[in-house]
Structures are given as C-alpha cells and as structure tokens.
C-alpha cells in the first residue's frame, strides 16, 4: 500500500492518539500512546499487510522508548511504530499473541530494560547467563554507569591487569 494511503488510513482510525512523522521517502515514524500501541501494530500487520521485522528500545531518564519495525517491501519503505513507556516500572501490552515472531524480541527488551509485557506467553530472559544475578537489567541507564564498560581506559597498568587478569601459575601435567 502506498505511503500516503497508509498515513491517511492510520490517521482516520486512530485520530489524535498517534502522531505521524516522515523523515525521508523511505522512513516513516508513527508515535502512539500506550493504550493504542498494540492495536496500531496489529492494524499495520493485518490490515495494511506489512511484514514484521523486529523491535528495539532506547532508554531515557523518564522512560523507555520501544519501537517495532514494519517494512512495506513492494513499496520500498519502513514504517516504525513507537511508544514511550514511563518509569518507574514501565509496562506495555504484548503483541506476541498476534505475531508469534515477536516473542523473543519482547523477552530481550524485558531482559535488558525491565519493560514488562502484559499477556506475554513466556516472559523470561532470553540471553541470560544462568550465573547472572536475578534482578540485573544491564542496559538500563542506572545500571550502565556502574559496570565495567563505563570505566575510563587510561587508568594505568593496575586497571588493565584487573580486567584482563593475571595468568595462572603452573603448567599442565
């Protein structure tokens, strides 16, 4: 479906709960409120016949911006559906019951940013090491500043040794 027609249909159906921005002929971004977000994604996937690609999340100090990408292959452009889940305890509805392909990406967003997806069939971490502590969300702003990637590089030989480690003494039998 052509870009102008898609923009018109979305505005008609959702009115002022969405805001449409076109950055370039190939990239269209639609910002939705939390309550219409799943309806909008389902509308784009089922009625407008887009393909589901994947999702992403960006952390901000007031909340987490979650987005899903829907390419329209025949017309050569990407439509991104975004919403903003407010902190503390960001919560959104899950789309996995309509699009099974979204199961893993929602689990990853939960694991990294602590965004809870209601009605998800199996919301547990997907990339987690079994040795990681239980409530550890590595990509949250509050957490990032504390772990190793944020440390400065040029601290001298002690810090380099601490990260890279000293080799074990002793040889193999």
């Amino acid at each position, binding site marked *: 479906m052509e870009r102008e027609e898609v923009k018109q249909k979305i505005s008609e159906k959702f009115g002022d709960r969405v805001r449409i921005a076109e950055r370039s002929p190939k990239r269209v971004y639609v910002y939705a409120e939390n309550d219409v977000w799943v309806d909008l994604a389902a509308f784009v996937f089922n009625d407008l016949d887009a393909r589901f690609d994947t999702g992403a999340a960006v952390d901000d100090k007031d909340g987490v911006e979650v987005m899903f990408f829907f390419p329209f292959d025949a017309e050569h452009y990407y439509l991104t559906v975004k919403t903003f889940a407010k902190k503390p305890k960001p919560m959104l509805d899950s789309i996995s019951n309509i699009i099974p392909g979204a199961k893993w990406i929602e689990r990853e967003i939960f694991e990294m940013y602590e965004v809870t997806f209601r009605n998800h069939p199996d919301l547990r971490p997907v990339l987690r*090491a*079994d*040795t990681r502590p239980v409530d550890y969300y590595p990509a949250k702003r509050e957490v990032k500043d504390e772990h190793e990637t944020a440390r400065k590089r040029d601290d001298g030989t002690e810090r380099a040794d601490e*990260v*890279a*480690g000293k*080799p074990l*003494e*002793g040889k*193999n039998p």
Partner: protein
Amino acid sequence: MSLTLKALKKSPWVFHVNTGACNNCDIEILDCLTPRFDVERFGIILVGSIRHADVLLISGPVTKNCLPRIKRLYEQAPKPIKVVAFGACGCKCGIFRDGYNIVGPIDKYIPVDAYIPGCPPKPETIISGIVKVLSAL
C-alpha cells in the same frame, strides 16, 4: 630424524571448544582439514570427545555461561593434555575486553601452554603453532 618430524609423527588428536567467539577462528581450524592445507596427513584429526584428545584448542573470550562448562571439560580431559589458546580473543579477550558478560581470557582459569594470536590466525600460523607445541613435548 629431525625433531619436527618426530613431533609430527606423534599424530595428536585435537578437541576444539568455542567459548563465545565469532566463529571465524573455528572456520579457520576447519580450513586446516581441507585439501589445501590438509593436516590429516600428519595424523592431526579433530575428535568429537574430550576423552580422546591430546590437545585442547580453546577459542573465544569466555562468557559467563561457558565458564562452568569449560572447567568441567578440563577436568574430564585425560592428562597429559596440552592447552592452546587460540585467536586474539583466546589470548587476551580481543576487542570484547570491556564487555559485561565476559569474564576474562581463558588463562585466568586453566593453565595454557601456547598462544596463537591473530584475528583470525591464518591456517599456516595454526599449523606452525601446533608444531611448536608438540616439539616442546
């Protein structure tokens, strides 16, 4: 008979483990078995079980998931065994040094006998590295 020839005649069996690497080092190891480099004529083969191995080849920066399994593998290996750390990631974590899921290069946990640097090491380097390990026996 020269030392190299004697060493090569020992025909070591190699077991390869990937602890979270990008695959490239593993492809180069498999490349050594293919007709151009063909280490099988020296008797070096890749085995499927640690209990048959003479050399343990470890690639990749060690991720938290893989650490307990690597330790268990090392305990199950029949001694004497030679451990070779492979690639830039095996030697010193490479470009992933500051990752939050990386617990450090493998020589923090098990003793390593040889290091083969490179990203990835070329097959010629690999063969030369294995020969050096064996000539030190």
